[in-house]
């Protein structure tokens, strides 16, 4: 990482430990592959954003300094490019969540368990969007219909529910990050994944493993 006073300082890493950026990349991929909304990584995101801001300030400072050498300028450029790339991942991560939040907004509003997985801002947006969609439906369709037909939560046999929910049976590729405890498969048998093994399974089978960080979606 770039420092105003000296040469770039690297994150100090234990073997096998992941950097904050690698951690975010993992969560980003998980989020993009999972049909359900995963828990928000607010702390991680906040740290990275802080870091981006600091890096940016440092870069501005160095650029303004007329004494910076040619080599330093080159290094500044690399740092700036890296910042842009990190921002891209953060942006994509945030937008992926936003997409799911809007898609399942009405389900989120009705389900407290899911709300716990959202950050305060996200939850606010979900509520607002759900309200927006409902009032749009009301203004365009429902208010012109006879009184009896105005509900938005009809439950009729053989019709899909009116509040869409994430499809947890969707197939995902899961890669084991450690040796995993056995999971129960839909047919009742159990399966155990070794470290590095990749399996194609329905999402709900690996849901708990994913929550504990024992697998990642690829």
């Amino acid at each position, binding site marked *: 990482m770039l420092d105003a006073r000296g040469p770039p300082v690297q994150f100090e890493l234990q073997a096998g430990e992941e950097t904050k950026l690698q951690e975010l990349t993992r969560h980003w991929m998980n989020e993009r592959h999972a049909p359900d909304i995963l828990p928000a990584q607010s702390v991680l995101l906040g740290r990275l954003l802080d870091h981006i801001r600091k890096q940016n300030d440092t870069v501005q400072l160095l650029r303004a300094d007329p004494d910076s050498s040619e080599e330093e300028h080159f290094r500044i450029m690399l740092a700036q490019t890296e910042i842009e790339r990190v921002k891209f991942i953060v942006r994509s991560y945030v937008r992926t969540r936003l997409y799911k939040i809007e898609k399942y907004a009405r389900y989120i509003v009705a389900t407290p368990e899911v709300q716990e997985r959202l950050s305060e801002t996200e939850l*606010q947006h979900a509520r607002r969007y759900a309200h927006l969609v409902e009032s749009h439906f009301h203004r365009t369709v429902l208010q*012109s219909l006879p009184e009896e037909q105005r509900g938005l939560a009809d439950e009729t046999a053989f019709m899909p529910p009116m509040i869409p929910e994430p499809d947890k049976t969707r197939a995902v590729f899961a890669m084991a990050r450690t040796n995993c405890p056995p999971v129960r498969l839909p047919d009742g048998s159990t399966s155990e994944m070794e470290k590095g093994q990749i399996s194609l399974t329905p999402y709900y089978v690996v849901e708990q493993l994913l929550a504990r960080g024992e697998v990642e979606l690829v």
Partner: protein
Amino acid sequence: MTETRQFGDLATQLVTESRRSTATDTLLKYNDPLIRSIIREQRQLEQMIASTLENLADPEFDGANPSLLIYQTAILRNKRCLLAYHSHRIDRLRDMYWAVGGALPHLLSDQDIRGKLSPHEVDFLKQYNSAVMDFRSEFSDELDITAGITQPPKDLHVLVRVVRDCGVIQTELGTIDFKKGQRFMVRRADIEHLIVQGYLEEV
């Protein structure tokens, strides 16, 4: 010649329109006349149910009346089709909104697009825009979440050609007055939204 029509035919037309819109990846004009006719059909069906129920005052009636079931099914189906049509359009509108990087005025000033929207949809977009802007303001100035996410950045700078005048823009190198026909080497992050909105073109 009289046209025979079943309950639900109109709704099928409406849903077919949504499918066509998806298949051709275009936004079709809001079909107000068709929606009005379906809503009329809904009222008609409701009246038919009411009048059937009145005729049931007969004490010997055992509760089984198939026509009621048919009316009710038609009502539910029509309603779902109406909602599906509107929901599909909202999805399209949101896609369009994000495709221009959340530049709502740019979207609404396009006469071609504007003509295809219903007044309620314009309202929807405006309210959606303000919701997204509030969400965005929770992040620091450093990170604009409405910027593109389709292509990861490869270079810091980009050579652009000005296609349409877009006035004076604040960039890393100071302010630049973009005039049609000129070329500039600028920082991508500073002008990405102008490329998306079609003012600049990558060379």
